[in-house]
């Protein structure tokens, strides 16, 4: 029983990371039908931004770790959102203006991801960075179950982000516009809605949350390297597809599902089987429901 709960908590933590990244894929896909393959690397950039912001406040300004954390959270989210918006501005928007086929935009996204990785490599070198400690580690134990305060923060953050996004998307006008675009982009300007504003807002949300995930990830696993976003980005993307890409609930469900499957596999089999088993299970889910769990096939009426 204790082992089960312990694994459950680990799964929730990993699922939270996947979910926070997956929602960036899903938001952008929902609005632009673009698979933003640079998103995993935006997560990586987010972790580095967090590193520089935290190091700056700790080392140069000499703030307390708590105050540093309080400043690092919003600044990381803001600056990472800036990175996402910049990508949209310089890479995706010019192609969209020219009416380029989606294939070329996806390729552009892949290239942008590689550029982010390699500019990191070029600017900072291949050496890894050690993320500073911002939180005094507290371990809570019940019987054989132990959980750190950080792990709980990660899980609660993911849940809070989910609630916030659900609220934005279902209750606000800009959220409604985001859902509207996903169904019919053509009619958006006819409603008096500047389409670019909605797109920028979408990138702000997605990249901001990737920045938050980057910060939390760096705090949990404090070694940073330029390729840290690649695999986790792919996994989060697959999680988003399995949950039903374009749907926020799907991103979270898919993320947590992947977390559970991975931790479950490792609990029962040698850890080298983890990714093979995890993706085989996800593949089977797609066999049964190719649109993903929350995905719906679009129908139109003549």
């Amino acid at each position: 029983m204790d082992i089960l709960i312990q694994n459950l908590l680990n799964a929730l933590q990993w699922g939270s990371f996947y979910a926070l990244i997956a929602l960036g894929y899903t938001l952008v896909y929902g609005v632009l039908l673009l698979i933003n393959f640079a998103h995993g690397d935006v997560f990586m950039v987010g972790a580095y931004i967090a590193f520089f912001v935290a190091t700056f406040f700790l080392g140069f300004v000499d703030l307390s770790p708590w105050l540093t954390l309080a400043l690092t959270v919003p600044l990381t989210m803001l600056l990472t959102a800036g990175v996402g918006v910049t990508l949209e501005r310089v890479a995706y928007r010019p192609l969209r203006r020219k009416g380029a086929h989606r294939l070329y935009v996806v390729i552009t996204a892949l290239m942008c991801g590689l550029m982010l990785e390699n500019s990191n490599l070029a600017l900072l070198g291949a050496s890894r960075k050690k993320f500073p400690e911002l939180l005094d580690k507290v371990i809570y134990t019940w019987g054989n179950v132990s959980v750190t305060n950080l792990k709980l923060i990660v899980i609660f953050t993911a849940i809070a982000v989910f609630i916030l996004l659900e609220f934005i998307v279902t209750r606000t006008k800009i959220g409604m516009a985001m859902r509207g675009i996903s169904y019919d982009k053509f009619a958006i300007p006819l409603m008096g809605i500047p389409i670019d504003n909605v797109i920028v807002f979408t990138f702000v949300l997605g990249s901001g949350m990737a920045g938050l995930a980057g910060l939390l990830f760096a705090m949990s696993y404090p070694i940073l390297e330029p390729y840290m976003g690649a695999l986790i980005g792919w996994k989060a993307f697959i999680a988003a597809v399995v949950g039903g890409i374009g749907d926020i609930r799907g991103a979270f469900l898919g993320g947590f599902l992947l977390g559970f499957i991975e931790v479950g596999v490792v609990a029962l089999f040698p850890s080298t089987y983890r990714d093979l088993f995890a993706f085989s299970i996800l593949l089977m889910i797609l066999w049964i429901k190719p649109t993903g769990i929350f995905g719906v096939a679009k129908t139109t009426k003549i």
Partner: protein
Amino acid sequence: MNTLLEVKDLCVKYGNIEALHGISFNVNEGEIVTLIGANGAGKTTTLLSVSRLPPPEAPKVISGEISWKGESILDVPPHEIISKLHMALVPEGRHIFGNLTVEENLKLATYARKDSAKDINGDYDRVFSLFPRLAERRKQRSESLSGGEQQMLAVGRALMSKCTFIMLDEPSMGLAPLLMYDMFRTLKKLNQEGLTILLIEQNANLALKFAHRGYVLDTGEIVAQGTSAELLANPEVKKAYLGG
């Protein structure tokens, strides 16, 4: 009479094909004007050009002028066509947001409105009294509506965006005759309350009975124009578009 929309010598390209070869027409305040013509004559292209939709949806204006109340709108961004100039387009195929409810569709149309909640609520009441069917279905996902109800929603949405001028692209398409007459009666009523209408129709008979004036478009050129009575009596129009 005040001229609202004036199109002058408009040449438009769709991809590499010139779709309009220098057409001119105007719409005055309070009028119902119709553009009739066969499939592919350039009717939809005309409306899309006037709506200033961004590429790739919209055709490219290569020469000529489109002006609203005397001022060129060629550089007006598409969302300001409705939010600043109050010109609405009900596009062909309706383009409602099927994943949103009826109410959300209407609400989204108020996105750019800056007037009071009281005015906006008044407009909801107006739309629901014009189209009681929409009131009954306000919480339904709009893709579950019938074709006729979707058309009502598309018009209702245009009204919620506070238009004074509405462009309708084939509103009769796919509608049962009874619903079609209902729709045109409602539009007539809106016109009497001050809404200016530019209507595109393949059903020339219906359009000319409804409109004050009309233009006949044929392969990107205007080949006839006049009051509806004149066009209905014109032997060539009769032969080509009115079935005898």
